[in-house]
Each structure stands twice: as structure tokens, then as C-alpha cells.
């Protein structure tokens, strides 16, 4: 087996990339410096995270003060994991858990005015997230955050996570899942539990915003999402991933598709380029298609020939996919479904033409 020799190009590229990163980092350092001079440094630890806390000299009143008016929340919160903030002193809010997120509440307790307390309804998403991330930023789920589309698009944590709920899961009942055995018609998702964990609930939650993706799952050829066989989070990581589309990973850095379809993982003696260089979606519509096998074209031959139409190895504008080596007569129906003979199209251990 010959050894992989890095090309000159692949050695030099990281240098220029490093320069880009250095330039970006320097620019950030300058901005940070300016910001530091522009205003006083915020105090560290939790109180800093109340950017919208009322300016009035409110003081911490304690959770007991909140309880009489917010009895129901108080009760459910006592069974929520966040209740540890109330009972343990390590976070600095023992007996004041409500105010660890909502800020000092003494003024609000007197006025009963929503403007006198940090209300998540009035915060912008970044401010809301910042409060959550005060405790949760240094956790493994946050590793992909800088790549995640939710973070970039201002989708706050509270869109999917219930903060006060005492329920491990969403409520069980006809309205929670109107059709008990199918999700063809779903409910409107809402944050009912700490986080949805049942597949049906996860799918409801995601599709409440991603309605067009949900519509794709109404097509005949699809993954069994409506049947609660899989969930959105089986393939996607809502907190972000370095792979495109917030795709989950398998075995550290391989695409998550191989978790279920591990027979396509390889390594194969002969790899099919798109499986490695792009993704399954080069040929498939994983959310649903009108075409068999979730293909992106109505006939297999078009899926293949749209790439395999470059004359010669050095291809048009440098793309991969030479002309097919065999001059099959496509007027004969038996040649129109290429994978009838090229059976190992995802990669073959034996045949460079993927025949076995």
C-alpha cells in the first residue's frame, strides 16, 4: 500500500489559512480592546447576565417572595433540574433561583409590574441565550454552537427547552399527540417538557418552524419520520455541527448517515467519489422524494449521467466524473437503471466498476 504524500498545495494552503485566521483574530483583539476602553468591564458570574435587568436599585428578594404569585411555576420548578440552583450554594443563588435568571426582583415584588423584572419575552434572543449560557456554555453540547445555524439565526434556547417544567417529557394526552399511532398530521409543537425526547415530540418540535422540510416528509419515498421510526435529531444536531446542515457525526468525524447505513461506510477498495467528497444528498433527497429510493431524479440514468458527462479525465471546469467507460445504448430500457448492474454504487470492495 503506498503512503499518502501530502501535496505541495496541501502544505502551503494551511499557511495562508493561518494568516487569514491570524488577521481575523487580530481584528477581533482590536475590537475587544476598544470595547474594553469604551465601557467598564462587566462583573463576572451570574449577575452580569442580566443585561435587561431594570435599572432601578432592585435587590434580590428570594424565591419565597416569588412563590405566592407564581405558585404554579414554583411548584413545577421544584422538580426541575434547575432547582439545584435553589438548593445548592455553588452557583451563588441558594434560595434565590428565580432571580438567577430573572434578575433582582424586589421592585417587581412591590409593583407587580412585568417591566420591573427580566422577562424573557422582552429580551432579544442573544440576551436570552447569554443568560442560559452563563451556566451551560462550557458543556459538550455547545461545541458545535459556532457552526450551528440556530445560533446564527437567533433561535434562543427557550424555543426548544422548557426552563420551569416539572415534566421530564411532554404531556401525555390526545392534544399532545392527537393521532396516537401516526404523525401524518401533527400538533403544533410547544415547549412542554424540559426538552422533547420522544421521537414524535422531537419531530413536532422541529417541524413547527421547519414546515417546508416537514412537507417533504409527506412524499411517498422518505425516511420513516412520520411513523416515529426516526427523529430529526437522529440525523441533525440542533446545537450545531461542523458538518453542513448541522449533520450529526458518527465515529468522531464521519457523516451520521453511516450510523444506520454502516454498510456504506467502508473504506472500500473502490470509493464512489460523491459519497466521500460531498454527501449522500448529491444523489438522494433524504427528507423525501417522489422518486424511488429518494433519488433526486426520476430515472437513475439521469442521476448518474448528469455528473458522468465529462469527456476525458481532465474534466470540464475541473469537475470529477468522466464519461462512462461502456457505450451502453440508453434506448434500451435495461440500461436506463444503471444500478441494476452497478449494484455496489456506494463503493465496492471488489470491482472498480461497482459491479459486485
Amino acid at each position, binding site marked *: 500500500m503506498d503512503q499518502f504524500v501530502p501535496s505541495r498545495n496541501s502544505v502551503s494552503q494551511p499557511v495562508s489559512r493561518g494568516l487569514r485566521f491570524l488577521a481575523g483574530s487580530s481584528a477581533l483583539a482590536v475590537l475587544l480592546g476598544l470595547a474594553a476602553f469604551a465601557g467598564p468591564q462587566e462583573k463576572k458570574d451570574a449577575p452580569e447576565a442580566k443585561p435587561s435587568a431594570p435599572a432601578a436599585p432592585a435587590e434580590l428578594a428570594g424565591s419565597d417572595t416569588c412563590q405566592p404569585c407564581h405558585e404554579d411555576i414554583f411548584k413545577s420548578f421544584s422538580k426541575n433540574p434547575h432547582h439545584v440552583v435553589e438548593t445548592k450554594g455553588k452557583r451563588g443563588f441558594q434560595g434565590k433561583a428565580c432571580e438567577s435568571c430573572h434578575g433582582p426582583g424586589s421592585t417587581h415584588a412591590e409593583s407587580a409590574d412585568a417591566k420591573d423584572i427580566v422577562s424573557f419575552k422582552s429580551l432579544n434572543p442573544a440576551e436570552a441565550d447569554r443568560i442560559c449560557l452563563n451556566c451551560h456554555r462550557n458543556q459538550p453540547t455547545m461545541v458545535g454552537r459556532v457552526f450551528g445555524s440556530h445560533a446564527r439565526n437567533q433561535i434562543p434556547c427557550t424555543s426548544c427547552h422548557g426552563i420551569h417544567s416539572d415534566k*421530564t417529557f411532554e404531556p401525555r394526552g390526545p392534544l399532545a399527540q392527537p*393521532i396516537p399511532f401516526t404523525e401524518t398530521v401533527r400538533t403544533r409543537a410547544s*415547549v412542554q417538557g424540559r426538552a422533547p425526547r420522544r421521537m414524535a415530540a422531537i419531530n413536532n418540535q422541529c417541524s413547527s418552524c421547519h414546515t417546508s422540510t416537514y412537507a417533504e416528509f409527506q412524499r411517498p419515498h422518505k425516511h420513516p419520520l412520520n411513523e416515529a421510526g426516526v427523529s430529526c435529531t437522529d440525523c441533525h444536531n440542533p446545537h450545531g455541527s461542523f458538518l453542513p446542515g448541522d449533520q450529526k457525526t458518527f465515529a468522531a468525524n464521519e457523516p451520521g448517515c453511516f450510523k*444506520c447505513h454502516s454498510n456504506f461506510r467502508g473504506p472500500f477498495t473502490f470509493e464512489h467519489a460523491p459519497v466521500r467528497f460531498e454527501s449522500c444528498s448529491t444523489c438522494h433527497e433524504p427528507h423525501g422524494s*417522489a422518486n424511488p429510493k429518494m433519488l433526486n431524479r426520476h430515472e437513475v440514468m439521469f442521476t448518474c449521467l448528469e455528473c458522468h458527462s465529462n469527456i476525458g479525465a481532465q474534466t470540464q471546469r475541473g469537475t470529477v466524473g468522466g464519461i462512462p467507460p461502456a457505450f451502453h445504448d440508453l434506448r434500451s430500457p435495461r440500461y436506463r437503471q444503471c444500478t441494476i448492474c452497478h*449494484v455496489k454504487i456506494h463503493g465496492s470492495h471488489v470491482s472498480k466498476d461497482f459491479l459486485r
Partner: protein
Amino acid sequence: MRGAMKSILTLFLLLAPVALPAQDPPKPVEEAKQTQEAKPAPETKPTEEAKPAADAPAPDLERPLSGVVDFGNRFVTGPSGHRNTYRSIVNLGEGPRVFNFDFGLQDPTGRLFDDLNVFGGNWGGDPYNTLRVIANKQRVYRFTADYRNLTYFDFLPSFANPNRPDSFGGAGANAVSRLTPEGTLLNQRSYDTHFRMSDIYLELFPTRRIVPFFSYQRNSWFGSGVTPFVAQSTEYPIRNDLQDSTDLYRGGVRLQFDRWHLTLEQGATKFRDDQRVFSTEANPGNRTVPILGQTLRLADALQSYAMRGESIFSRINFTASPYSGLNVHGQFLFSQPETDVHYSESANGNFILLNAARFYNRLSLGVNGEAARPRTSGTIGYEAHIGRRFRVIQAMVWDRLHNASDIAVTERLFFASSTEQVTNSFQADRVEWNYYRSQNDALFDVTKSFTLRGGYRYISGRARSRPGDLGSTGDVVRNLEQSKLERHVGLAGATYRPNAKFTLNAELEASNGVRTFFRTSLQDYTRLRLIGRYQLTGSLLLTGNLRFLDNQNPAPGVDYDFRSRYQTFGVYWTPKGGKVFTLLTEYARSTLRSDISYIVPQELSRARSFYRDNAHTATAVAELAIPRKFSPRLSFGGSFFLSNGSRPTSFYQPLGRFLIPLHRRLHYYTEWRWFGYDDQFYGYSGFRTHHIVTGLRLFM
């Protein structure tokens, strides 16, 4: 016996509503209402807030055991039309089922666990069995086990070679097509298989800072199918027994501190593929006309795969917050899967060696080799808050893999003249792939409710592939294909939330790609995404969603012109908190147009590939609650998909449902659904069927 059981169960279910209404009337559940009303999460859809928990009791957490189970019986008519297409798309069968269960058990003493949750569904013969167990003991452990057994049945007659007389299970179907115990006719590239997946994950909490974790996963695919045995451009569909499995083990430790976190993980996988393709009876193949006066045929064949694979992988994740406004994230990921290749093949019959125009009647093939594919990935990024209004997110990804493989192939052809031709060859492939992506975003809160985002993404990559024969110097001497990727993408976005009632999120990408890997990849493209939501009144919520992609590759010989648009519009109406009437409906309109040049292989002329997909999708459910003593509920609606274009298809699933709370903890329901599928160009593959489900929902 099974039929008798079904009858008894059915009788019970049908009589249940008659016998049980005499019991306690449903009682409003204060706790459920309180919880709903009190829910303060700002992003929650207000329609839900007003919605009472209806007749279902909320899980009573004061009771050690709470939960719900749905069970009943499904009746299926037909299906009329193509049964195997029905099984490929719907595949729901008849008989008693446990549709859904969800239990929670709490142990106040906390000896073994604080809470244990078990949920799943589709048991009793349905194709998607699921089970999940979650146990938790605070500050001691968290345990998750997930099990799924998913049926994958795929026999779409339109996917077979229509020239074969037995292609559609017609009169010409021979014995090799009748493979399943039920006598189901299968055809080329068909599967009657199962995916079985288990995933166990255990986290321990010896201290708050140090969290060891362990995980074991096992995924397997097994079953039977039909796949063509290919010999010199002739295909012989024969039985395929699939059996592969992957075991994955991983463990590591998380170090969680206030200002930083580090995860170290090490794992390994073992893979085995024992697929067999075999036939023991005569098979005429797809050539029905003699060649050089002889008829080709397959007498028997065996392809035996014995692939063994293993891999190691490592993961290092870290996050840090050195300053209050700066979060740094990074990953180092490495995996190195390897495969040992052992393959043997033998076949008897009458075959032709086309390039020599000679007939042979026995073939044997032996292949041994190995392949390895190390892959190294790294990411680093940060999110910085600069002042109160300005944020910067910068992230970079490096990803690199190469695959090196070698196999030794020995092929023996036994000719009719008792001569033998032995061919030894060494073949190999070298694949290299380098990928880099960086993205910089700046977000600015113009006002409290309006955020603008702008950014830039740069992607570059390089790919090479050299499959072919190994030369005497050890180099691969054939088919070097290489490509580069370079893409500059401008990014923009906006979020507007003037109040809790209105949200608008917009995202735009535009690029003039310099180079791309494949002809159909993103090149010069514009992508737009809009998501909006407006709570018009307390009971009326409107949503809209737009996805648009325009991608052009004007290179000579490619001339790729792609445009897709997806628009959805939703109306959710819950007057009076949904106590009497609820309407949830969505409509999606999608259009896709793709034109690209391709080369017609038989004459090397250029042609255009046109693909069109113009689809309408609607989903709706209306629920009517009769405000009477027992509050029965009537629901109707369904899902409707209609597509025109290159593959005109319709798939309708209307439904109606009736639910009666017989008791506070017992509901009776019955549902009718209809499935109708039509593929205009392959009319014979359509089907229609009615499903009637009747069952009970039991609350604990």
C-alpha cells in the same frame, strides 16, 4: 388461534364504548391547566397556552408510576393495486398492536434511580418498533438505552428491468423471484430486510467536575433481497442474503469547569459483512436472444462476501470562556477505519467473453486485499460579544482523508474446450480529499427587536481519485481524476421580533463559485430562506416559510441551470382555547427546475437533461369537541401530496378519528385512514387501502 385472538380483541374493543360510559365522568385536571397557563417560555406558540389539557390527565408526578399506553387493533382492506409498492411505502399490517406507550416511574427513596422513563411504540407487528429507557439518579448517573427494529422493504417494480419477463411478478415470474416466506415476489434491487439498532449510553457523576461516560452501539442490517449477478453485461437476478453488523464502543471523560470544558473520547468499531448472493437453479438472464447461435444462461452461482473491518477514533472537544464575552470552541477528531477484503465467486452456466467472442461455462473469482481510510478533522471558533449590541462569530474547519486500498484478484474462466484461462491482477485505489471552510459572521442588534447579520464564508478543497490496476512500480496506472473546490460566499441575515406575536427570520447566501467538485454542485448560487410567524389574534396563528435556491454552472458542456422554491403557509386556529374547535392546516407549494447538458453514451452526442417537480402538499386536521358530559372528540383531515413534472405522483392519506373519554383514565378511539398512491408513468404500481384502527388509551 391467532385469528380467534384477533376476533376476541376486536369484539372487546367494539363493545368497550358501550359498556364503559357508565363509569366516572371525566374531571378537569387543575394541575394540567395550571402548568399550561403558567408556562412562561417566551418562544412558546401562544395557541398552545390557551389549550387545555383536555380530558387527559396530566402525568401525576406524586404517583410513583404514571404513564399512558395506546393499544388496539388495525384492520386493513386490500390493498388493491400493487401490494409490494404498498409494502415499500406504507407497510402497515393488520392485527393487534401496541401503538404507543410512555411510562414514568419515580422512586422517592432514590435507591436505584430517581426517575425511570420507558417509552416507545409500534409493537406487535408494525415495521418500526422503538423502545427507549432513560434512568437518572441525580449526582450519580444518567443512563439511556435506545432500541429500534426498523423494517426496510423495498420492491418498486419501476426500478427493475422492464425487459425481463418476470420483472413485475407477472406470469413469467420464475422461482428465483419467489423468495420470501410469504411468497412475495421480489425483483432486482429489492430488499426485505431489517435495520436493528441498539444504543446504550451511561454517564457517571463521581464529582460535579469530572464525568466519565461509556457507550455501546450495535447496528445491523439483515434479511434477503434480489440483486443482479453480472457477467459480461448480462444480468441474472438472484437471491441476496444480507447480513452485516457494526459494533461501536466508546468511552471518555468530560472535565467541566466554570470557565472551560474538555472532553476526551476514545472509541473503536468492529464491522463484519457476510453478504451472500446465490442461486441454485437455471436463470436465463436478461438476454432473450441467442448470441453467436448460443443462449446464455446461469446454472448456479455463489458470491460470498466476508468483509471484516475495524477502526479506532478519537475526539477532543473543548470550550472555554476566558472572558465574560468570549466563548471559544474547538475540536480535534480522528478516525481510521480499515477493511480486510475476502471475496469469492463461482458460477456455472453458459457465458460469453465478449472481447474474445468465446464461450465459457465456469467462472471463479477470488479477491483478497485491504483498505484503510484515515481521516483527520479539526475545528476552532469563537463567539465574541463586543459591547451590548455587537457580536462576532468566526469558525474554521479542516477536514482531510485519504483512502489507500489494494486487492489481489485471481480470475479463472473454464472454456467449453476444457481449456482454462487464469488472470491474476493487482488493483488499487488512492483517494485524497482536503477540505477547508471558514466563516465569519458579525451580528448587530440595531434595536432590541431587530438584529442584522452579515458574513463571509470561504470554502476550498482538493480531491483526487485513482482507481485502477497496479503497475510494476507499484503505482496506480489508470483513471486519475482530480478536482478542486473554491467558493466565496456572502452571507446576510436578519431577525425581527417586535413583540412576542411576530417573528421574521431571513437568511441569504450568494456565491460566485470558482471551482466545484461535481457538475451539479453549488457553483454560482443564491439561497434565500424566510421564516415568519404572526399571532394575529389570541386564537389565530399564521406562519409562512420560503426556501429558494438558484444555482448556475455556465461552464461549456455543463450549462447547469437549477432553481427550486418551497413555500409553505400555515393557519392554526384554536377559538376559545380549542375547547370546541381546532384547525391546524399547512399548505406547501414547491417547484423545481433543473436543466443540464450530458453526453449520450452510445453516440457521444450532447443532450439536455430536464427535471421538473411541481408539487402541492397539504396537511390538515380539524378537531371538534362536543361539549357534553363525556366530551367526545371528532378529528378529520389528512395529508395530501400531488406532484406534476418529470414523475407525476400522488400520495393521499385522509383520515378521520373519533375519541371518547370513557373514564378519566380510559379513552376509546377509532380511526379511519385511507392510503392512495399513483405513479402516472407506472400505473401498475399504484395502490389503495383503507385502515381502521380501534383501540383504548389507558392512563396510569
